[in-house]
């Protein structure tokens, strides 16, 4: 059985590298479900989880009923086992991402080594602390022998040692990071699943926005807020571009209705840090220089920056902003969308247009991007189908019988 020499890493939860037992389980094994369910329950019942909606969302996703549903969706017509050792390189931009990655690896039946960022934000620390305590309990001993959440300052030698023995690697990061990690030697049958830099956008139907009752409009703004501001547009699923559909008059009226409702909501969230406003203003100036035809839309305050474009440049994704910076255009026949979409494009959120018809448009147009079409509000809902990958199936192997 595989053995890794002990490396100079800091173990945050689970076993040390030398203690790990490299024996895979079947997908959705009872021990894995028991651990994840316990993790979910312990997190949800803590009063301090209230401060961290993202940690609470993870705990909610991980609850027994949802895991049971995912298990049913996998089906039982194939005999599967985890591939073996899954190495996870977690991203720095989404604090709870490492937990999902770890859960996916475990649900697929793998032993998991999860490298988390060196300085853990509060909610990540909370998730780890609860996991650590559960993994010391006798009933979770099997999972403890399959889990190591660790961190180390950037060290290619350590990452190389781990990569060399991995059977599957989940690589979350920017394009440079992925490229760098790919250059490291891995075993011949190691499967790399790369979650590289992605770009996302939103489609709003002006007639639908205008026709929405106040409750529906409020729900739209809350959903948009969650998609954008919970992570300040740092997540690759958050929209940076808004495509409107409707006549010029409808779109103008709908923009007024939508953005004033957004402003009202943003006002209830308090004053954003000055540095965000400075960053947006700087980006606006940069955009004015670099993007032809960009017209800044006047805003009441610094919470939202909007740039209108008649024609999107093909490299619009390179001009994305953060903390509430949006490009807007009208795109009635999806002609602009078809021109700009490439493999970088991940999530298309929508309101007033049916997700199925949009998804069909993606397929019939042969678009090389867009892996998710979801309603506004669902942009950050991560799951076992992600970035176009079917993660549980990809991270497990099939034992074929004749």
């Amino acid at each position, binding site marked *: 059985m595989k053995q890794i020499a002990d490396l100079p890493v800091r173990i945050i939860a689970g076993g040390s590298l030398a203690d790990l037992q490299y024996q895979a389980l079947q997908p959705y094994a009872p021990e894995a479900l028991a651990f994840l369910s316990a993790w*979910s*329950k312990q997190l*949800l*019942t803590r*009063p301090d*989880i*209230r401060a961290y*909606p993202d940690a*609470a*969302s993870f*705990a*909610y996703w991980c*609850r*027994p*009923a*949802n895991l*049971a*549903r995912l298990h049913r969706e996998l089906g039982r017509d194939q005999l599967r086992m985890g591939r073996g050792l899954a190495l996870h390189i977690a991203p720095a931009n989404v604090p709870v991402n490492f937990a999902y990655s770890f859960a996916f690896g475990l649900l697929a039946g793998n032993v998991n080594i999860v490298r988390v960022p060196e300085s853990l934000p509060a909610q990540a620390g909370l998730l780890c602390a609860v996991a650590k305590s559960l993994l010391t309990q006798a009933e979770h001993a099997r999972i403890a022998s399959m889990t190591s959440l660790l961190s180390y300052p950037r060290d290619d030698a350590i990452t190389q040692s781990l990569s060399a023995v991995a059977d599957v690697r989940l690589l979350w990061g920017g394009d440079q990071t992925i490229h760098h990690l790919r250059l490291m030697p891995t075993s011949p049958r190691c499967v790399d699943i790369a979650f590289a830099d992605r770009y996302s956008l939103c489609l709003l139907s002006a007639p639908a926005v205008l026709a929405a009752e106040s409750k529906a409009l409020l729900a739209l703004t809350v959903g948009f807020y969650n998609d954008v501001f919970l992570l300040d547009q740092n997540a690759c699923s958050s929209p940076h571009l808004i495509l409107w559909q409707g006549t010029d008059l409808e779109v103008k009226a709908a923009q007024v209705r939508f953005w004033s409702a957004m402003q009202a909501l943003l006002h209830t969230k308090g004053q954003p840090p000055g540095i965000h406003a400075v960053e947006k203003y700087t980006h606006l100036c940069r955009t004015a220089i670099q993007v032809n035809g960009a017209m800044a839309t006047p805003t009441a305050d610094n919470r939202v920056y909007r740039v209108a474009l008649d024609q999107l440049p093909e490299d619009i994704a390179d001009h994305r902003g953060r903390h509430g910076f949006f490009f807007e255009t009208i795109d009635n026949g999806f002609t602009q969308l078809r021109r700009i979409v490439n493999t970088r494009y991940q999530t298309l959120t929508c309101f007033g247009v049916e997700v199925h018809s949009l998804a069909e448009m993606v397929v019939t147009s042969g678009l090389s991007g867009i892996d998710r079409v979801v309603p506004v509000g669902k942009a950050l809902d991560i799951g076992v189908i992600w970035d176009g990958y079917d993660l549980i199936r990809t991270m497990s192997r099939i034992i074929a019988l004749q």
Partner: protein
Amino acid sequence: MSNLETYVTAFTSSLLVEESALENLKYQDIAAWDSVGHMALMASIEEAFGITMEIDDIIEFGSFAIGKEILKKYDVLI
């Protein structure tokens, strides 16, 4: 435990609220029943009754009273 007792316990333990406050309790009436509290409550109810609720029902589950009606769909009679 009767279904009612189970239901009450799900509320009192998830929302840290007294049983006496439950009858007319609605979503967002108290600080504890915010969106995070709602997730905790739904998870607790699903587990207590061994059911998986549809997303529409989770969204509609806006009060102690309405919840009882919704649970009838899952053959849970309170």
